């Protein structure tokens, strides 16, 4: 597998505007997209000092606290090194860890499957990325069904919604509902529940609990139309 990173065009999905779009962004999908991006960042890699400091700034600090992500509660959740060890322990290994991949966590053959890497879900994610003009970042080389990639894809769909025409709105929301139903919603909540049981820092426990609730809230909101 080769990485499809286009070095010259490394543009994150969170850019305020999409090229060629002159529409004013809708605030709600924009906010949802930002939250998906934030969560993608949490699971993408070990947190940096800048990231942790950013979380402590208002109005983020209060907004997080309102959602029971109270990082001040656990001093370890503010230590880059501690969180780095925890990230590796939870998501990287070596050693017992919780592989953060849909193919591994979702049994796809109706008979139980074997949780091998790069199953149909991974290939489906690649197709979704490609049809949206996206590619995996270098950090996730060969890991298209990584939880961070799927969250980032949802962020992308929200971004699209924020800029679409009124005619396209229903289609955008249907697409999001389908993605939640087919991918993110099928495994991430139960996967993150295992993360919560395993994590020793409030950082990963609380973000994961919030992420589960958010996905649930999203499913409800999108099904309500």
């Amino acid at each position, binding site marked *: *597998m080769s990485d499809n990173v286009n070095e010259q*065009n*490394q543009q*994150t*999905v*969170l850019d*305020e505007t999409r090229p060629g779009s002159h529409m004013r962004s809708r605030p709600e999908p924009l*906010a*949802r997209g*930002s939250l998906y991006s*934030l969560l*993608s*960042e949490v699971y*993408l890699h070990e947190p*940096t000092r800048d*990231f942790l400091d*950013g*979380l402590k700034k208002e*109005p983020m600090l209060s*907004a997080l606290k309102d*959602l*029971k992500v*109270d990082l001040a*509660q*656990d001093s370890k959740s503010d230590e880059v090194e501690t969180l780095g060890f925890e990230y590796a*322990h939870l998501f*990287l*290994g*070596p*050693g*017992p*860890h*919780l592989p953060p991949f849909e193919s591994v966590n979702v049994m*796809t053959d109706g008979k*139980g499957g*074997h*949780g*091998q*890497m*790069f199953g149909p879900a991974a*290939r489906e994610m690649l*197709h979704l990325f490609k049809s*949206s003009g*996206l*590619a995996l970042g270098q*950090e996730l080389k060969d890991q298209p069904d990584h939880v*961070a*990639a799927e969250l*980032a*894809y949802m962020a992308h769909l929200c971004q699209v919604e924020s800029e679409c025409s009124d005619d396209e709105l229903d289609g955008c929301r249907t697409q999001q509902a389908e993605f939640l139903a087919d991918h993110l919603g099928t495994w991430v*909540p*139960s996967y993150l*529940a*295992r993360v919560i*049981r*395993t994590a*020793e820092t*409030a950082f990963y*426990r609380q973000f994961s609990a919030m992420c589960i609730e958010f996905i649930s*809230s999203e499913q409800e909101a999108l099904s309500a139309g």
Partner: protein
Amino acid sequence: MQLTRRRFLQLGAATSAAVVAGGALVASGEELEELGSVEGGKEHSAGNIRESVPTACLQCGVTDGVLAFTEGDGDEKRIVKLEGNPKHPNTRGSLCAKGQAGLQLVYDPYRIRYPMMRDPEKRGDPAAWKRITWDEAIDIVAEKIDAIQKDGDIGKLVYHKGRDRFGDFTGRWIDATGTKHSLNHTSICEASLKAGYETTFGQDLDTSDILNARYMMFWGDNIFEASYMHNPMAQRISEARVGSHRPKVVAIDPRLSQTAGAADEWIAPKPGTDAAIMLAMVYTIMEEGLHDTAFLDKWTNYSSADLKKHLEGMTPEWAAEISGVDAGKIKRIAIEFATNQPGFARAYNGISSHTNGTYNARCVALLNAVVGNIDKPGGFCLMKSTKFSKPEPVPSAADVQEELGLKADFPLIDRMHEDYPLAHHKTSHLSMQHLKEMDYKAELYILHQYNPIYTNPNCQEQWDVMKDTSKIGFTVDFSPFLSETVQEVVDLVIPDCTYLERLMINTMPAVENFGYVHLYQPAIEPLYESHSMYDTLLEIAKKVPGMAKYFQFDTVEDFAKAAVEGIWGEGSWDRLKADGALINPGGGKTPNVEPADPAYKSYDELTPDELDDARVFNSHMVRLSDEDITELKAGGSYPEGDGTIKDAEGETAGVVVDGVAYKGFPTESGLWETFAHELEENNFEPLPVYVPNPPLENLDDDDFVLITGKFNVHVQSRTSNVAWLMEIMHYNPLWMNRSDAKDAGIGNGDMIEMDSGAGTGKMECRVFVTEGIRPGTVFMSTSLGHWHYGPPATHGKDPFAELPNLDFTDSKAIEDNVDAEWFKEDQGGLVDIWWREADLPGDSRGETPHGRPTVGWLANWITPNGDEYTDPIGGEFAWNDAVVKINKVSSASEEVALGLGGAAIAMGVAAAAVKGINFKHESEAPDADDEAIEVGETEVVAAEKTGGDA
């Protein structure tokens, strides 16, 4: 809910782009449409195009030829099936279960994806790893080597490899460091077999000619399940048995292995007494006048008359007393063997993993020599191999030590140098024990494809020494997988890729007696941030000033190409990549010959005549050319009558027999050395003898000899993360003879305690009661009983199950959620592992009410290690000299009555296991019945075959 929803939106709005760097996804610059859908969950999808890549297998050391089939392009490319390469001269298109399942190694969810490091003081702590960059990893290793070289005590660098089939490269790398501490795993394999053969005929193994044999004996050689050349030989035995020769197959093994079960006759001696039977057979053959006097008198260094004298008293009755095998049977088998030639007696580590292993191997050699079937069609044949050329400059450890001014007399971790002078294949199983006793510390310990703390005898001791930072400063492992060793004792793991993602070249002897070369090439590019470890070694070498000059090629492929084209000329590399394996058809009649014209062909291109011509027999009888003779007479030493010819350097150059100068055997005398001077000089028995194994003498009535082996679907330690193989074999109860079990009041499936008094002393396991093992002997297979290596190996046990229940009280968020449905859900393991210790055949997955998980058992916890369990000559560890006492712990039937579940049906499971019945194999194993494929061509899977799956 509305409130929460609002809060989510507030948080989203508050999240600034500055906080979120992004990077999971990036813009690709193009939008592709109409990509089609992904077919539903199957390995094969109707209408998909497949490509095949000829490469090779590395599940075991036989290195069969493989066709790796892939689907998809670019980042979607995936290996979907492995089959045997029909162009491979050993494999001929068929691949064993281990080989076919190899693709599950590639997609193991526990593969190591990034270089990871932890503080050596935190060895064993799964929460102490941190990710480092690839450059950091390379620099750390390069700097440590450089520092050791500058310090001068190069012994502080230890390289310990297990299964390596690119020795041309690894050996160069190790030599370029200057260290002598290059350890291996041969002493826990067949080191003494090699020593016995080398001291007799100068080669370490045989390639007996199965297709032309009329009589085949397999001594401690489970060729239908494991052993050296398992698949290539097993398929030819099957072929020969339905052919015109109708050979008889005899298996000698205390246990009814698959080989013994498939044989025409099974002989079950007391463990370690095989040599007595072999000597009595030789005695009988000579008594009956069935021996090959000419071969013994002309081609061995010990005359038939002297041999007869040596064998005095070694009668079948004498052997029967020792071995417990009936004298009449020994005599009958001896006469059968001698009168049904051509034939051979082949052996493996069932006979060599004893303290008398080298002697046993020398008796195998004698049994073949006495009937004169050496290197003849249908006989016991010498290996024919091809060597690669070595791109200059070639380092030697001694030269490097001198060049860099390194200390050459550093303390030696391998005891072969001082205590085991004839153990040329090393005594690596003793190295950690020795290091513990030495006043010495290895600063850098590099591991490669080796899981020592699981695989070695007394594994707890290995573990303890390797964990001790006062003994090993820093441990580096090139591992793709979560092995016990990585988890417990490694400090830096640099992710290697699997054998299906890398390039290597390798030569092996063809079982049809010609030389060939083959290669490994990537079916897909290395996944994640893994790299071929050989690429990594190259990169490290280029950064170490003392090593760089020996690695003046840009890529590993450049090296491999030069090594191949150096022997077979321009164009041969491309041809090798296209076919996977090439042989040297007109290669003449000697091993290691100059190439003929055409220099190379693939196996399937040869006509029957060409194939026949390619086979090399009687390699010792190749005549020296007149030119060579003239030169040797002038510059070397040439005997008056018959005798050894030496060249100007004093090296053996041939042998004169009956006045004719031949190439001879690759021994000091040029003859078959029934009498080994090297043994005599080191105060060992120079002639083939039976000597008892001290650990097996004077046994108590309640002692059992514990022997070990492998089942057909596993290797020693590296297949337990393969779910398909674990489905077939996941239960390894201790085999015990029915009469022994009755005496001890032990029933099928009962839990017992085995006590060796060594290692951790005692271990519990279940029993399989069977007629298929000699009374007084018990057997346990290797491969199982892992405590790491991923979910299939550990029965899908939640990786964190052993962590204490977390106290969530410090987090209100968690408290608020504990009642949520998602939290209460049974999360289970990541991998659906349906098997239970006592599953009934026919049970549906997940519906077994009484089953409990099993991971099998590992005998290495109690296997004694040390000098008294090591062959003093060949240095092999005496796996089969372990003695245990057995006590019943609980009865399976009582457990069921008490509702404890478990082993009630162990009988059914074990019986099925023994027969190789795959009673609950529900997964999709790779299709074996797809249409024949041409190498290098593409394949379209027939739509009707898989249409129903989509």
